[in-house]
């Protein structure tokens, strides 16, 4: 009986167990279904232009002339600068000008509408134009913008390259700036393009690198035309047939003035080229800052620093002078990031219509491979003309995605019988685990369906919601502020570096974070894409990581420090020399 009873009990138990297993299985299925759906939701990337709603009303002015003056096609950059140190990034917008009003502007005094503009982030979703209050009314056709604290006073300063004499504004710390271009001796009169701050001689002070474009000025200006169908059609001159202009390095003397050391630094060791984009970092990992320059239609340059501020071009041997076919391309903007999570900085260069934008994968030991085709950028970019490019982690999954803004430099190709659109759609590429980029523009918001003539782009978490946003400049068009409205459960960590013995802006520093099996490497950049400057705050997408985080910072001079116990979702300012662990000297020289 017992046995019978027992077996009946067992059968009953078995039934119950089966029922429990069945219920558990169903529950698992339901949960996994909801998990999949949640995962799918996580990948919803959406950006919305909120420029008007946030009172950003900047309109770029660069009316085209009948004779199609070249510099009027190149546009101006944008730069994020927290000029008032309130933790909310403000926006500085480069302005163009009309060809025939250039002198009138100088004569009549500057007007606000024709000036570069500073828009203060009021921290409640609105911007306010403070250009006049800040003393930043300017004249001239502005191009590149570089943001950095050159005098270690805790306030970021502004350098603006121009078509003509450049501008340098010292932040007074009281909401105003002083223009000190001439007294600081940084008034290069050339045709300046992208520029960046970086400590090039390892003295802890930010020096300046200015990529110059063409050797032209208002008095010596080439005008190009072709006869087509019996008519004379003017179009901007091809840069290969206009001499390039030497780039400039200004060494920060630490006393408020700079010294032009371009020749001494080796920049004149080869013929001048047509520079547009610039990116500074320690490419060969020897503890000093090197410079990569994207040149228009000629070979790009990789200036390797000998540690004392003397450079030699090693682009050829590093494999970044040309593309994989051995062709030089029309380099415009440069974005740099570790796209594949191997800890090395890779380079993305925007190029001309008919060329591809080019992704150079860093293989280490100062050697790069063009992996454009395999990563999905070739067919996506061949029928576009790229300018601004920005790496940003749209959904905080820990992989660096890429934004590219496009637009042609010829608006009259139809008259020459060519079918290359002047206005073009921008693009957003989602990084799939460091292997491949998928063009998700179609579903990333209406902005990506609008054809525009895009030029500069810069990243900032302007509303401090933990997601990276974008400012985008357009030639002769309105500035766009793209708010990141992506749905994601991933958190980020916001970091700002402050150097003490290194440069105060931390430009050139490397940040490493390990989240589970994944290692994230981010770089503190001195410039962004084309003519632009990202916010100094660096966002690290942490994916599904929820635990406390340790951060390793390698400062520009090679010293490393580790900060531990950082919480996802928070914002931290890391000051050089203040961590518990700072005894890891890694200077390799």
């Amino acid at each position: 009986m017992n046995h019978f009873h027992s077996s009946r009990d067992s059968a009953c138990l078995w039934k119950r167990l089966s029922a429990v297993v069945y219920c558990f299985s169903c529950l698992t299925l339901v949960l996994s279904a909801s998990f999949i759906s949640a995962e799918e939701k996580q990948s919803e990337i959406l950006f919305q232009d909120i420029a008007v709603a946030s009172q950003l009303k900047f309109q770029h002015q660069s009316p085209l002339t009948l004779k199609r003056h070249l510099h009027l096609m190149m546009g101006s950059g944008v730069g994020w600068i927290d000029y008032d140190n309130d933790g909310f990034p403000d926006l500085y917008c480069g302005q163009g000008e009309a060809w025939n009003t250039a002198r009138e502007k100088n004569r009549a005094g500057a007007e606000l509408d024709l000036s570069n503009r500073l828009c203060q982030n009021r921290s409640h979703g609105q911007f306010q134009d403070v250009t006049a209050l800040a003393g930043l009314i300017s004249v001239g056709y502005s191009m590149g913008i570089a943001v950095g604290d050159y005098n270690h006073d805790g306030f970021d300063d502004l350098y603006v390259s121009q078509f003509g004499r450049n501008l340098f504004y010292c932040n007074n710390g009281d909401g105003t700036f002083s223009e000190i271009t001439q007294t600081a001796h940084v008034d290069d009169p050339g045709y300046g393009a992208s520029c960046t701050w970086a400590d090039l001689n390892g003295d802890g002070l930010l020096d300046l690198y200015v990529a110059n474009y063409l050797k032209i000025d208002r008095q010596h200006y080439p005008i190009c035309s072709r006869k087509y169908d019996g008519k004379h059609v003017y179009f901007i001159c091809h840069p290969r047939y206009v001499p390039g202009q030497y780039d400039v390095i200004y060494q920060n003397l630490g006393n408020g003035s700079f010294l032009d050391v371009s020749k001494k630094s080796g920049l004149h060791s080869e013929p001048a080229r047509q520079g547009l984009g610039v990116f500074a970092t320690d490419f060969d990992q020897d503890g000093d800052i090197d410079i990569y320059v994207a040149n228009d239609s000629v070979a790009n340059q990789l200036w390797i620093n000998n540690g004392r501020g003397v450079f030699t071009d090693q682009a050829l041997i590093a494999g970044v002078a040309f593309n994989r076919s051995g062709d030089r391309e029309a380099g415009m903007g440069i974005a740099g990031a570790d796209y594949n999570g191997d800890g090395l900085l890779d380079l993305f260069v925007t190029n001309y219509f008919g060329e591809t934008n080019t992704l150079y994968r860093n293989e280490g030991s100062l050697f790069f491979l063009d992996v454009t085709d395999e990563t999905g950028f070739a067919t996506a970019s061949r029928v576009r003309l790229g300018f601004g490019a920005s790496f940003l982690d749209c959904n905080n999954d820990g992989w660096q995605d890429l934004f590219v803004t496009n637009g042609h430099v010829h608006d009259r190709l139809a008259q020459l019988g060519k079918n290359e659109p002047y206005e073009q759609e921008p693009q957003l590429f989602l990084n799939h685990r460091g292997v491949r980029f998928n063009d998700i523009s179609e579903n990333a918001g209406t902005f990506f369906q609008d054809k525009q003539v895009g030029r500069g782009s810069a990243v900032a978490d302007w509303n401090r919601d933990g997601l990276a946003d974008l400012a985008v400049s357009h030639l002769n068009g309105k500035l766009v502020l793209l708010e990141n409205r992506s749905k994601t459960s991933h958190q980020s960590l916001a970091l700002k570096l402050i150097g003490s013995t290194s440069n105060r802006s931390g430009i050139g520093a490397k940040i490493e974070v390990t989240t589970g099996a994944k290692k994230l490497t981010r770089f503190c950049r001195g410039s962004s894409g084309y003519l632009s400057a990202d916010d100094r705050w660096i966002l690290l997408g942490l994916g599904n990581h929820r635990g406390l985080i340790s951060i390793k910072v390698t400062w520009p001079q090679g010293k490393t420090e580790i900060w531990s116990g950082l919480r996802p979702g928070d914002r931290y300012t890391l000051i050089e020399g203040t961590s518990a662990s700072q005894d890891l000297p890694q200077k390799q020289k």
Partner: protein
Amino acid sequence: MIMNTSQEPDHLPQPFAKDEKGPFFSGGSIVAIVGLGALLVFYFFDQNDSLSLKHAKPIKPNQTSIRNQEKARQKELIAYLQEHPDDEFAHFQLGQLIQKRAPFQALENFAHVTPRHPRYFEAVKAIADIAREQDLPARAKPALLTLVREYPEESRYFEDLARLLFQAGDYDRSLHYANRSIELGANRTQNYLLVAEILRYAGRINEMAAPLKQALYLDPESYQAHLNLAYATLYSGDLKTARRESLWCLKQRPDSVIPLRYLASINRNRGEVDEALSNLDQALLIDPQDFDSLLLKADLLIFQKQGQQAYDLLKPLYSNRETDRRYISALARAAGLMGNREEALQLQKKNQQLIKADDLRPTSLQSETVEDNHSREQ
């Protein structure tokens, strides 16, 4: 992306063979010398006609009489022209008479006909025909330009001129005339294929799809149109169409290497590197020497960081390919990946030299006029 190259057999037919000029003689002077020689031979032949007739096949009586009449007329005209060398009509008549047998001499005779003469345009047409048949583009071009001016509604002259300019590398003007020939009613598959081919060589590959689709509308089975559409859509990023067209071509010609190579490029652009390598292995089974397949395979091996394998694949091709920049660049990358930095540098420097040579060629955006503007004129 590795595309069709000019060596590949699937190209559209070339309108004229290349005009390879000698270092000291222009095309015109060569024609003049040949023409003079032809006149002498012709005259000599005429003197010895009875002798050569002995060895000729028997000729029917009516043919013989026509031939004799022609010969008599020839003699008469030649004799007349010796007395009256400026008689344009005599030149025209002689040209017509000898066009088939002595085209170079006929060309010279027709050239004596000036625009003042009522038969001038007939002479120009004859010059254009002879120049095309005898592959003399330098003589054909002015004749065709005259004809398109005089007969602006005749599509065939526009088409001929388009082919001629295409061969000369004048792609913009070639495209203009090719499109005009279509506007004037030339509506054959080859007209659209010509437009597509010009666009391709002009670097305007993104515009090729439209004429190719029109060609396929006219001839849905045109292999060339399908293959070129695969190429054009692969270039512009329409990988779905590129794949469909490549598969169609492969079905038609299973032993064709080019569609396999396109499939490899498509797969590479999709990030499917292993599939791409499989396509290339298939292509190399068909033609182990196919350079573009070898190059693409090496490229993929480099991407996979297999520098040594890529280098081993490429290095044996050096002597035949040392002026191909794609090849030199791939070899440099393979060497660099293996750590042969000095070799990589030397190869990149070689590439730089090849670029300098390329720079001597004008680009499509080079201005015809560059002026240094001092004014503020808008």
